[in-house]
């Protein structure tokens, strides 16, 4: 291998080896992180376009330019691509891969080959998902007999229209329209495998590769968050793996597990699915908590408030997240179970509130500078508070029965996922951009894109809370003739306009970063934001081995405003 023992001056992980092949076979966690970043960004725009198609259709009542079937396809594409291809690998695989070894002072993750393998497994899963989205029967360049073979033998034939949850009666239906459920669930299974291997790698890395002196009490909160995420990734994903595998078995062999006509219980599918898919929202949002926990102290020049509580709350959320899954199914499960799960769900609010309190207290009386990452982090705290409090509404059994399957749920979900996970990812990309690329970006442009994202996001999803409260059901193709029609019309139109602004904001933000990555002239110093954590103590971008010498940690990461700062 070409791991140079002697470090050549002026080289870094980006230029130490040249050529596509050196990237494709790299075992360097930093390069793998960048490969993930480019892949998930592609799928982010792909899923975003599907969302814009859905929003455009809903701009006015009545059919605009889609058929109801195509509408179902598009919201399913949006959900599947965003959840399985973008957010789940989002912060853990991109930021976790890049930062985890750097933050604990290791040279790499514990199993570099496994890390590369997870990336390729992710690519295989992504390819399966993309193949399953092809509308085979309407492709002009495929002849009739080949198209028949693809549809009837290979199980392809058009995007899935089950929604991203693949709920049992929909995903098992064989009659009528063809759709590539087998391929899509297979893709989700493969992507889950990639997620498991990444999580496993991170857990072992944190246990075995911490630098001398990097005790558990000195770990940055991002490492704690990534570790908690990794536990969920490793232990929750197999359950969805088996439930998707059973759906495939059921479609291929006709065994009766979930199909009521074959003696199955479709609600069991929902149980197994949500046993993964509720913890999975913490896979998405916990690393974002970690990111915010890193950004706020740096730009407030204050130690993080209640470090132990922050780390404990991270684990509290991860653990409680395992016992609340059935609150997604309040209207389909029995009464006893609904009471129990409603009761348990309230407990998630406690550690979450602890975290919000700690973030706000970290900023309190700090000397805050409003750089772009800080703006995103503060937006995160604000948006996540709305997301959390509306979550309480949905945890309450009586209220949820009313709000179930309305736009209120859609809005709540997007406030947590987009206002939480995506804003967290964008904040992280801005904050660690100098470290990852060795360049600086233009602050003014970044701030403009921030305003677009923030305004666009709220314009899209605040009206959706009202839509839900006024009784607009989710996943409806048309809302002509519903109660409060005029109000619904106005709110839908507002939401669509907001979606366009939001999309423009994200597009400009990422193009801005990409432009300065490729063409940027300003070289970044090793530590432009004057952070104390370990990844900033090596050069920007880091050398292939991360640190010229193994660092020895003697202090806590968050000593801002204390003796260490001159």
């Amino acid at each position: 291998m070409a791991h140079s023992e002697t470090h050549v001056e002026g080289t870094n992980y980006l230029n130490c080896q040249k050529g596509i092949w050196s990237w494709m076979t790299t075992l360097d966690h930093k390069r793998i992180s960048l490969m993930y970043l480019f892949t998930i960004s592609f799928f982010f725009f792909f899923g975003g376009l599907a969302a814009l198609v859905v929003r455009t259709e809903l701009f006015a009542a009545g059919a605009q330019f889609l058929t109801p079937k195509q509408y179902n396809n598009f919201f399913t594409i949006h959900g599947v691509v965003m959840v399985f291809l973008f957010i789940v690998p989002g912060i853990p695989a991109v930021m976790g891969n890049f930062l985890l070894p750097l933050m604990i002072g290791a040279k790499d993750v514990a199993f570099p080959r496994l890390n590369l393998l997870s990336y390729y497994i992710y690519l295989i899963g992504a390819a399966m998902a993309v193949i399953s989205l092809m509308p085979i029967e309407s492709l002009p360049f495929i002849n009739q007999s080949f198209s028949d073979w693809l549809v009837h033998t290979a199980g392809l034939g058009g995007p899935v229209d089950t929604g991203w949850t693949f709920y049992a009666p929909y995903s098992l239906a064989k009659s009528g329209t063809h759709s590539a459920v087998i391929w899509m669930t297979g893709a989700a299974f493969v992507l889950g495998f990639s997620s498991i291997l990444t999580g496993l790698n991170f857990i072992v890395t944190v246990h075995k590769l911490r630098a001398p002196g990097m005790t558990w009490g000195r770990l940055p909160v991002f490492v704690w968050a990534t570790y908690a995420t990794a536990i969920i990734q490793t232990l929750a994903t197999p359950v969805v793996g088996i439930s998707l595998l059973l759906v495939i078995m059921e479609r291929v062999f006709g065994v009766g597990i979930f199909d009521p006509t074959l003696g199955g219980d479709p609600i069991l599918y929902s149980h197994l699915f949500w046993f993964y898919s509720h913890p999975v929202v913490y896979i998405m949002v916990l690393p974002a908590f970690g990111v915010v926990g890193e950004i706020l102290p740096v730009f407030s020049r204050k130690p993080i408030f209640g470090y132990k509580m922050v780390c404990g709350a991270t684990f509290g959320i991860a653990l409680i997240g395992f016992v609340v899954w059935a609150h997604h199914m309040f209207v389909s499960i029995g009464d006893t179970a609904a009471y129990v799960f409603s009761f348990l769900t309230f407990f998630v609010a406690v550690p979450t509130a602890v975290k919000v309190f700690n973030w706000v207290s970290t900023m309190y009386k700090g000397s805050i500078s409003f750089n772009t990452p800080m703006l995103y982090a503060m937006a995160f705290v604000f948006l996540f508070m709305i997301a959390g409090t509306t979550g309480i509404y949905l945890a309450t059994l009586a209220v949820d029965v009313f709000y179930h399957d309305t736009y209120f749920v859609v809005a709540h979900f997007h406030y947590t996922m987009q206002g939480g996970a995506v804003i967290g990812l964008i904040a992280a990309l801005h904050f660690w951009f100098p470290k990852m690329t060795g360049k600086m970006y233009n602050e003014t442009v970044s701030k403009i894109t921030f305003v677009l994202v923030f305004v666009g996001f709220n314009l899209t999803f605040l009206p959706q809370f009202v839509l839900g409260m006024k009784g607009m059901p989710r996943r409806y193709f048309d809302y002509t003739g519903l109660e409060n029609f005029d109000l619904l019309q106005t709110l839908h139109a507002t939401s669509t306009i907001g979606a366009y602004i939001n999309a423009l904001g994200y597009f400009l933000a990422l193009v801005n970063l990409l432009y300065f990555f490729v063409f940027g002239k300003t070289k970044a110093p090793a530590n432009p934001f004057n952070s104390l954590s370990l990844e900033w103590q090596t050069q920007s971008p880091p050398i292939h081995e991360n640190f010229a010498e193994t660092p020895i940690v003697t202090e806590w990461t968050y000593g801002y405003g204390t003796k260490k700062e001159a």
Partner: protein
Amino acid sequence: MSNPTISNAIESGPPHVHHMDAPTAYHAAKLGMWLFLATEVLLFGGLFTAFALYRYVYFAEFQTASVNLDWRMGALNTAFLIFSSFTAALAVDAAQHGNNAKVRRNVLITLFCGFVFLIVKYFEYKSKVHYGLFPYAVKGFENFLFTGSLFLAIGASGVVIFTHNAKLRLPTILASIALVVSFYFLKHTIATIEFDLANLFPFGHAHHPKDVWEFNGPEFNAAYKSYFGLYYCMTGLHALHVILGMGILFWVYLKALNNRFSPNYYTPVELGALYWHLVDLIWIYLFPLLYLVG
């Protein structure tokens, strides 16, 4: 990360990893394997949950349906798997003492037991298909056999080529071709072989009420379909793990052929054995659940 120029030489130290020392690498690999086993427990956990629920809901039907499984076949397979687990543990012990010949011997016995397990399983499935207890029309079981041997041969050749053992490359490829060709010509003959423990041990009674229970007939109601669906999913997934475990142990065997193991380095034997023990553990629960208490 061994140096390519010396990778064919016989060496018995741990491979050099650039980012951690050897004992850390050993413990990291073992923790990683335990975590992977944890995911396997939860993977099968979904199936166990489904089984528990349907056994509760369709209590009487599950009792009746489970009689169709021959517990003697299950017990035989349990014994084989426990013995193979024992030899796998002995292989680790041998590697810890640096005795590569003993590692090879124990791994071969383990592989043999795994193979016997699969053969017994094959005859069980075959009898179920014969009595119409399989939920899907399977025609040409012999083609299934042929495809299986093809994958086995490709996998084995792949493992040998992947381990860079120049001495073994040609013999393995030839043996693989011979295996595939002989299976192709003998598949019809093999498919006619019958094996039923009831002929050897005529006590107990596993009845196959062929004329009553056509799978899609009116008597064979949804509950029975549930039972057999779960039976095939659970044992099928387990059999897949047996095959994967055999693949890993075969790779360990090839390393032992190169005398790669020493008291300082035996990580692959330990990891392969851990995986194999998990296969045994799952079966320890599957056997009473499916064959004995229903």
